[in-house]
């Protein structure tokens, strides 16, 4: 009998070009390389230095997302880039993709989007693949049963040049989430609960496989949200074994095999799972049924509470510092905090289901007058679908801004920023000091919670809307 293997073990060994030796890490093959404007220019320079082409341009896919404006072009046709340097960086990606024959989803593409929204939408992301990108939220693609992780720019150059990476095999962890999530609890809440349990560094050195009834019950967009946030616990990759939900999502997408070939591929994909007795270096069990809608209060994604709970007591100097930065006192009711900005979007929560959830909360309601709310679709496909459903009308009627797709206020490098000292409730992934602009204070939550906060103008949950009489 063969040794039982985890899904991660199987993906790892299937991509071994050369096994690890005592002195040299394994060489693993990369099936899909996603590229964006910010972390790629110096990677392309390596090719020019070596005078070589991109080894597999057909396995490389590029988009504009991080630094681009989310406001439309002005009457002069000029897009409002935050700086000329940002515009030059986008032009550099355009030039690089042209020179090296890479498919780029530029402004004119109806598929352009945040790299981790676009890949799955196109069906470029497939089970069993190794996927990398110069972005830590590449873990998103693990939702399809792929080994997907973020890399630095030097490694972007390695993959462009050789389609491979030198890697030591990480340790493995399984996170089992048993039971059922309550109806008002989302994948974002589940992820924030997992990160709180593990701590922001509890996953360091590991690849995580998510399993259990509550994970199985998630739709693909929710699975992407969960895997996306894996890096916030320090683990480079998170994955979920493919099942019928995965197959149904992928069928008919542009870059998957079509017809009979798809069904054959699907049969193989459904084989990708951890063996029954697979051994993990670490395994934890969590109960979904006790998880509540959750919001962060500190400066790392592990510092969160259930909506309605007060700000906890700090347990060390770093938590004390976080509370000070955020302007919270321990024991204070979170609901006392006025919210100034609400951001719905990002590779974490910028998909169509997130916008539907947002619109459902906003329908027939108004964003509080002191709140600026930005809703930024994760991709052109998401934007077009939302507009076809009239979600944008609901969102605009409520008083929120409806923007063009991009990373926007999640990384705040395109000019969409939270002013110093202001509080933002954000559906993104990081609440680090200054993440959404110097001096900004970020509370991470689900789209539902974010929309409820926008309406009530303070920290609140959807349940609070029902108990409050609003003037529409």
């Amino acid at each position: 009998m063969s040794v039982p293997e985890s899904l991660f073990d199987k993906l790892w060994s299937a991509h071994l070009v050369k096994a690890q030796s005592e002195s040299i890490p394994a060489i693993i093959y990369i099936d899909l390389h996603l590229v964006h404007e910010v972390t790629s220019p110096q990677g392309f320079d390596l090719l020019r230095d070596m005078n070589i082409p991109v080894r597999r341009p057909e396995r490389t896919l590029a988009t504009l997302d991080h630094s681009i404006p989310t406001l439309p072009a002005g009457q002069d046709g000029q897009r409002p880039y935050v700086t000329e340097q940002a515009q030059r960086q986008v032009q550099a990606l355009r030039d690089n993709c042209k020179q090296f024959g890479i498919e780029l989803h530029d402004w004119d593409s109806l598929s352009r989007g945040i790299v981790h929204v676009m890949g799955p939408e196109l069906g470029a992301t497939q089970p069993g693949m190794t996927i990398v990108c110069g972005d830590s939220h590449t873990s998103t693609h693990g939702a399809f049963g792929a080994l997907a992780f973020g890399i630095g720019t030097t490694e972007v150059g390695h993959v462009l040049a050789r389609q491979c990476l030198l890697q030591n095999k990480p340790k493995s962890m399984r996170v089992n989430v048993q039971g059922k999530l309550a109806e008002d609890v989302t994948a974002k809440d589940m992820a924030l609960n997992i990160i709180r349990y593990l701590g922001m560094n509890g996953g360091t050195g590991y690849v995580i496989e998510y399993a259990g009834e509550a994970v199985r019950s998630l739709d693909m967009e929710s699975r992407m949200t969960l895997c996306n946030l894996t890096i916030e616990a320090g683990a480079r990759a998170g994955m979920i074994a493919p099942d019928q939900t995965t197959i149904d999502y992928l069928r008919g997408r542009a870059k998957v095999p079509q017809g009979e070939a798809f069904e054959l591929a699907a049969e193989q994909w459904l084989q990708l799972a951890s063996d029954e007795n697979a051994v993990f270096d670490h395994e934890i069990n969590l109960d979904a049924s006790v998880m509540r809608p959750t919001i962060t209060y500190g400066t790392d994604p592990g510092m969160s509470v259930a909506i309605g709970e007060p700000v906890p007591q700090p347990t060390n100097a770093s938590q004390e510092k976080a509370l000070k930065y955020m302007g919270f006192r321990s024991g204070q009711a979170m609901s006392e905090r006025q919210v100034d900005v609400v951001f719905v979007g990002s590779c974490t929560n910028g998909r169509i289901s997130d916008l539907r959830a947002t619109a459902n909360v906003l329908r027939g309601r108004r964003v509080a007058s002191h709140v600026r709310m930005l809703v930024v679709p994760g991709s052109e496909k998401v934007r077009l679908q939302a507009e076809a459903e009239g979600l944008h009308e609901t969102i605009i009627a409520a008083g929120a801004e409806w923007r063009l797709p991009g990373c926007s206020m999640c990384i705040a490098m395109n000019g969409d920023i939270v002013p110093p000292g202001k509080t933002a409730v954000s559906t993104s992934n990081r609440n680090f000091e200054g993440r959404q602009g110097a001096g900004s204070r970020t509370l991470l939550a689900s789209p539902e919670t974010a929309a409820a906060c926008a309406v009530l103008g303070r920290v609140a949950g959807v349940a609070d809307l029902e108990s409050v009489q609003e003037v529409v």
Partner: protein
Amino acid sequence: MQAFTKLSGPILVLERENIDTDQIIPARFLTAIDFDGIGEHLFADWRNDANGNPVPGQVLNQSRARHSPILVGGHNFGCGSSREHAPQALLGFGFRVVISSQIADIFRSNSHNIGLLAVVLEKDQHATLLQMDGEEITVDLEQCKVIVRASDGDEQSWSFSIDPFARHCLLRGLDRIDFLSQAEDAIAAYEDQQVQDWQ
């Protein structure tokens, strides 16, 4: 990349835990197409006030910061994004070594790819260093040792472990791409064998 063998110099201590890459280099400085001058923006929001003026007394604004080749950071240093700009900014500012009791995965691999040595020490050793701001220590990659002089004058030597390949490359200043280039036959063979899966 520049080789690293052994270095002695004063340490600069940033005691905070969980120093993330958004602190090390805020995102608005990521729009350049090269890494030239990126060290000037290291910890920009710590060093400068809202108007962009240097915060007086901020440790990184002291002249000694530029002459301290070794940064000792709090637990879980370099967490967050995969931006290589973070170790590039540290190198550009003048650091050659980062020491902590835990260093985030992607940050560490980025650092070793570009010649910034990332050293993980035991918690008590790390705690000792956190109290030694400005004092001189030695980091010896050949021996995998950090050597400090304790307050009673005794020399202490702490071993650290590091990925042997990272050490090999750092000691010789080797770029990893060369190892991939040398594996061309194996890569081509892999592609030939897997080609059916690609159709």
